[in-house]
Protein backbone atom coordinates (compact mmCIF):
# COMPACT_ATOMS: atom_id res chain seq x y z
CA UNK A 1 0.00 0.00 0.00
CA UNK A 2 1.38 3.45 -0.83
CA UNK A 3 2.91 5.27 2.11
CA UNK A 4 0.64 8.29 1.86
CA UNK A 5 -2.44 6.07 2.15
CA UNK A 6 -1.11 4.45 5.31
CA UNK A 7 -0.30 7.80 6.88
CA UNK A 8 -3.42 9.71 6.08
CA UNK A 9 -6.15 7.37 4.96
CA UNK A 10 -6.92 9.82 2.17
CA UNK A 11 -7.31 8.15 -1.17
CA UNK A 12 -7.29 11.11 -3.50
CA UNK A 13 -5.22 14.26 -3.74
CA UNK A 14 -7.48 17.22 -3.24
CA UNK A 15 -5.51 20.14 -4.54
CA UNK A 16 -2.17 20.92 -6.15
CA UNK A 17 0.65 22.55 -4.21
CA UNK A 18 4.23 23.56 -4.91
CA UNK A 19 7.48 24.22 -3.12
CA UNK A 20 10.61 26.06 -4.25
CA UNK A 21 13.77 24.24 -3.20
CA UNK A 22 17.19 25.40 -2.10
CA UNK A 23 20.64 23.90 -2.68
CA UNK A 24 20.51 21.61 0.35
CA UNK A 25 17.09 20.35 -0.55
CA UNK A 26 15.46 22.68 1.89
CA UNK A 27 12.07 24.24 1.26
CA UNK A 28 12.49 27.93 0.49
CA UNK A 29 8.84 28.73 -0.20
CA UNK A 30 5.57 26.83 -0.08
CA UNK A 31 3.23 27.97 -2.84
CA UNK A 32 -0.36 27.46 -1.67
CA UNK A 33 -2.42 30.12 -3.43
CA UNK A 34 -6.14 30.34 -2.63
CA UNK A 35 -7.07 29.74 -6.28
CA UNK A 36 -5.25 26.39 -6.59
CA UNK A 37 -7.43 23.40 -7.35
CA UNK A 38 -7.40 19.69 -8.15
CA UNK A 39 -5.79 20.03 -11.54
CA UNK A 40 -3.99 23.35 -11.62
CA UNK A 41 -1.83 25.94 -9.97
CA UNK A 42 -2.83 29.13 -11.79
CA UNK A 43 -0.33 31.74 -12.90
CA UNK A 44 1.03 33.70 -9.96
CA UNK A 45 2.99 36.98 -10.04
CA UNK A 46 3.91 36.26 -6.42
CA UNK A 47 5.55 32.96 -7.35
CA UNK A 48 7.41 34.64 -10.21
CA UNK A 49 8.67 37.35 -7.87
CA UNK A 50 10.02 34.67 -5.55
CA UNK A 51 11.75 32.85 -8.42
CA UNK A 52 13.35 36.10 -9.58
CA UNK A 53 14.62 37.15 -6.18
CA UNK A 54 15.99 33.68 -5.43
CA UNK A 55 17.16 32.66 -8.89
CA UNK A 56 20.77 32.29 -7.79
CA UNK A 57 20.11 30.06 -4.77
CA UNK A 58 17.09 27.99 -5.82
CA UNK A 59 17.78 24.68 -7.51
CA UNK A 60 14.25 24.07 -8.70
CA UNK A 61 10.63 23.61 -7.81
CA UNK A 62 8.32 20.72 -7.08
CA UNK A 63 4.59 20.52 -7.53
CA UNK A 64 2.05 17.83 -6.92
CA UNK A 65 -0.21 15.98 -9.31
CA UNK A 66 -3.43 14.28 -8.25
CA UNK A 67 -3.60 10.51 -7.89
CA UNK A 68 -1.11 7.68 -7.74
CA UNK A 69 1.53 6.23 -10.02
CA UNK A 70 4.39 7.74 -11.95
CA UNK A 71 3.48 11.33 -12.85
CA UNK A 72 4.49 13.17 -15.99
CA UNK A 73 4.59 16.81 -16.96
CA UNK A 74 1.61 18.34 -18.76
CA UNK A 75 1.98 20.66 -21.72
CA UNK A 76 1.25 23.52 -19.31
CA UNK A 77 4.07 22.32 -17.05
CA UNK A 78 6.60 22.01 -19.86
CA UNK A 79 5.85 25.41 -21.36
CA UNK A 80 6.11 26.97 -17.90
CA UNK A 81 9.48 25.30 -17.27
CA UNK A 82 10.70 26.61 -20.62
CA UNK A 83 9.39 30.13 -20.00
CA UNK A 84 10.84 30.35 -16.50
CA UNK A 85 14.25 29.13 -17.60
CA UNK A 86 14.21 31.66 -20.44
CA UNK A 87 13.32 34.41 -17.99
CA UNK A 88 15.73 33.39 -15.27
CA UNK A 89 18.57 32.59 -17.66
CA UNK A 90 19.38 29.28 -15.96
CA UNK A 91 18.35 25.64 -16.07
CA UNK A 92 16.66 24.10 -13.03
CA UNK A 93 15.32 20.78 -11.79
CA UNK A 94 11.54 20.45 -11.72
CA UNK A 95 10.05 17.72 -9.55
CA UNK A 96 6.52 16.32 -9.85
CA UNK A 97 5.06 14.25 -7.03
CA UNK A 98 2.03 12.04 -7.13
CA UNK A 99 0.69 10.53 -3.92
CA UNK A 100 3.24 7.73 -4.06
CA UNK A 101 5.81 8.52 -6.73
CA UNK A 102 8.28 11.28 -7.57
CA UNK A 103 10.01 12.25 -10.80
CA UNK A 104 12.42 14.96 -11.92
CA UNK A 105 11.99 16.85 -15.15
CA UNK A 106 15.02 18.52 -16.72
CA UNK A 107 15.77 20.07 -20.06
CA UNK A 108 17.50 17.62 -22.39
CA UNK A 109 17.44 19.55 -25.67
CA UNK A 110 17.86 20.32 -28.36
CA UNK A 111 14.34 21.74 -28.72
CA UNK A 112 12.99 24.23 -26.22
CA UNK A 113 10.37 21.78 -24.96
CA UNK A 114 12.57 18.68 -24.96
CA UNK A 115 12.48 17.76 -21.29
CA UNK A 116 13.51 14.40 -19.82
CA UNK A 117 11.60 12.66 -17.04
CA UNK A 118 13.58 10.54 -14.52
CA UNK A 119 12.12 8.45 -11.76
CA UNK A 120 13.28 9.14 -8.20
CA UNK A 121 13.59 6.11 -5.94
CA UNK A 122 14.96 7.76 -2.79
CA UNK A 123 12.57 10.54 -1.90
CA UNK A 124 13.76 13.77 -0.25
CA UNK A 125 12.20 14.73 3.07
CA UNK A 126 10.07 17.58 1.72
CA UNK A 127 7.94 15.26 -0.40
CA UNK A 128 5.72 14.07 2.42
CA UNK A 129 4.98 17.66 3.44
CA UNK A 130 4.13 18.51 -0.18
CA UNK A 131 1.72 15.57 -0.25
CA UNK A 132 0.20 16.57 3.06
CA UNK A 133 -0.38 20.12 1.84
CA UNK A 134 -1.89 18.71 -1.34
CA UNK A 135 -4.54 16.95 0.72
CA UNK A 136 -5.51 20.07 2.57
CA UNK A 137 -8.18 22.19 0.89
CA UNK A 138 -6.72 25.29 2.53
CA UNK A 139 -7.67 28.67 1.20
CA UNK A 140 -5.05 30.39 3.17
CA UNK A 141 -1.53 31.22 2.59
CA UNK A 142 1.60 31.14 0.63
CA UNK A 143 4.16 30.56 3.30
CA UNK A 144 7.87 31.04 3.37
CA UNK A 145 10.09 28.63 5.22
Amino acid at each position, binding site marked *: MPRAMIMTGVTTMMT*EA*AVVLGPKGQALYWHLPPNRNT*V*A*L*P*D*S*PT*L*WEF*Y*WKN*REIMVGQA*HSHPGYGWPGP*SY*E*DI*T*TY*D*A*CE*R*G*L*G*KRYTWWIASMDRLVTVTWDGPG*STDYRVDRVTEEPSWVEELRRLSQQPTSDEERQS
Partner: protein
Amino acid sequence: MIQAHEAMVNVTYNGQNFELPDPVNYTAGDGDIKAWVSEAIRTGSIRGVAADPNVDLANFVVDRFDAPADPAPGQRSHNAVFLRPKTAYGLV
Protein backbone atom coordinates in the same frame (compact mmCIF):
# COMPACT_ATOMS: atom_id res chain seq x y z
CA MET B 1 7.62 62.85 -19.80
CA ILE B 2 5.42 59.79 -19.88
CA GLN B 3 1.86 60.65 -20.84
CA ALA B 4 -1.23 59.38 -19.03
CA HIS B 5 -2.08 57.07 -21.92
CA GLU B 6 1.43 55.59 -22.01
CA ALA B 7 3.35 53.04 -19.98
CA MET B 8 6.95 51.96 -19.54
CA VAL B 9 7.59 48.31 -20.32
CA ASN B 10 9.71 46.32 -17.89
CA VAL B 11 11.04 42.98 -19.12
CA THR B 12 12.63 40.00 -17.40
CA TYR B 13 14.51 37.79 -19.84
CA ASN B 14 17.64 35.64 -19.75
CA GLY B 15 18.43 36.61 -16.18
CA GLN B 16 18.23 40.30 -16.92
CA ASN B 17 15.66 42.91 -16.00
CA PHE B 18 15.38 45.96 -18.19
CA GLU B 19 12.99 48.55 -19.64
CA LEU B 20 12.22 49.35 -23.23
CA PRO B 21 13.74 52.77 -23.89
CA ASP B 22 10.48 54.33 -25.05
CA PRO B 23 6.99 54.18 -23.57
CA VAL B 24 4.18 52.33 -25.31
CA ASN B 25 0.47 52.97 -25.46
CA TYR B 26 -0.96 51.57 -22.21
CA THR B 27 -3.87 50.00 -24.07
CA ALA B 28 -1.63 48.12 -26.52
CA GLY B 29 -2.49 44.44 -26.74
CA ASP B 30 -0.38 41.73 -25.14
CA GLY B 31 0.56 40.40 -28.59
CA ASP B 32 1.82 43.79 -29.71
CA ILE B 33 3.88 44.25 -26.56
CA LYS B 34 5.43 40.79 -26.94
CA ALA B 35 6.20 41.52 -30.59
CA TRP B 36 7.94 44.82 -29.79
CA VAL B 37 9.99 43.27 -26.99
CA SER B 38 10.88 40.24 -29.14
CA GLU B 39 12.12 42.52 -31.88
CA ALA B 40 14.20 44.54 -29.42
CA ILE B 41 15.81 41.42 -27.97
CA ARG B 42 16.29 39.74 -31.34
CA THR B 43 18.11 42.72 -32.77
CA GLY B 44 20.03 43.62 -29.62
CA SER B 45 18.73 47.17 -29.74
CA ILE B 46 18.59 47.61 -25.96
CA ARG B 47 21.82 48.76 -24.38
CA GLY B 48 23.31 46.10 -22.12
CA VAL B 49 21.02 43.35 -23.34
CA ALA B 50 22.63 40.71 -25.54
CA ALA B 51 20.90 40.01 -28.83
CA ASP B 52 19.09 36.66 -28.95
CA PRO B 53 18.02 35.55 -32.41
CA ASN B 54 16.02 32.70 -30.84
CA VAL B 55 13.98 34.81 -28.45
CA ASP B 56 10.55 33.28 -27.80
CA LEU B 57 8.08 35.06 -25.54
CA ALA B 58 5.06 32.92 -26.40
CA ASN B 59 4.76 31.71 -22.82
CA PHE B 60 5.33 35.05 -21.18
CA VAL B 61 2.51 37.07 -19.64
CA VAL B 62 1.80 40.78 -19.36
CA ASP B 63 0.98 42.38 -16.00
CA ARG B 64 -0.33 45.96 -16.02
CA PHE B 65 -0.15 48.43 -13.16
CA ASP B 66 -1.97 51.77 -13.26
CA ALA B 67 -0.16 54.92 -12.25
CA PRO B 68 -0.82 55.65 -8.57
CA ALA B 69 -3.30 58.46 -8.05
CA ASP B 70 -1.10 60.25 -5.54
CA PRO B 71 2.44 58.89 -5.78
CA ALA B 72 4.79 59.41 -2.87
CA PRO B 73 8.20 60.97 -3.55
CA GLY B 74 10.39 58.42 -5.30
CA GLN B 75 7.43 56.20 -6.15
CA ARG B 76 6.56 55.30 -9.73
CA SER B 77 4.20 57.94 -11.10
CA HIS B 78 3.34 56.40 -14.47
CA ASN B 79 1.58 53.31 -15.79
CA ALA B 80 3.77 50.24 -15.97
CA VAL B 81 3.68 47.03 -17.97
CA PHE B 82 5.68 44.02 -16.83
CA LEU B 83 6.50 41.16 -19.19
CA ARG B 84 7.51 37.97 -17.35
CA PRO B 85 7.33 34.18 -17.75
CA LYS B 86 4.08 32.47 -16.84
CA THR B 87 4.12 30.32 -13.71
CA ALA B 88 1.04 28.16 -14.33
CA TYR B 89 1.14 24.41 -13.70
CA GLY B 90 -1.42 21.72 -14.28
CA LEU B 91 -3.80 20.35 -16.82
CA VAL B 92 -5.69 23.53 -17.68
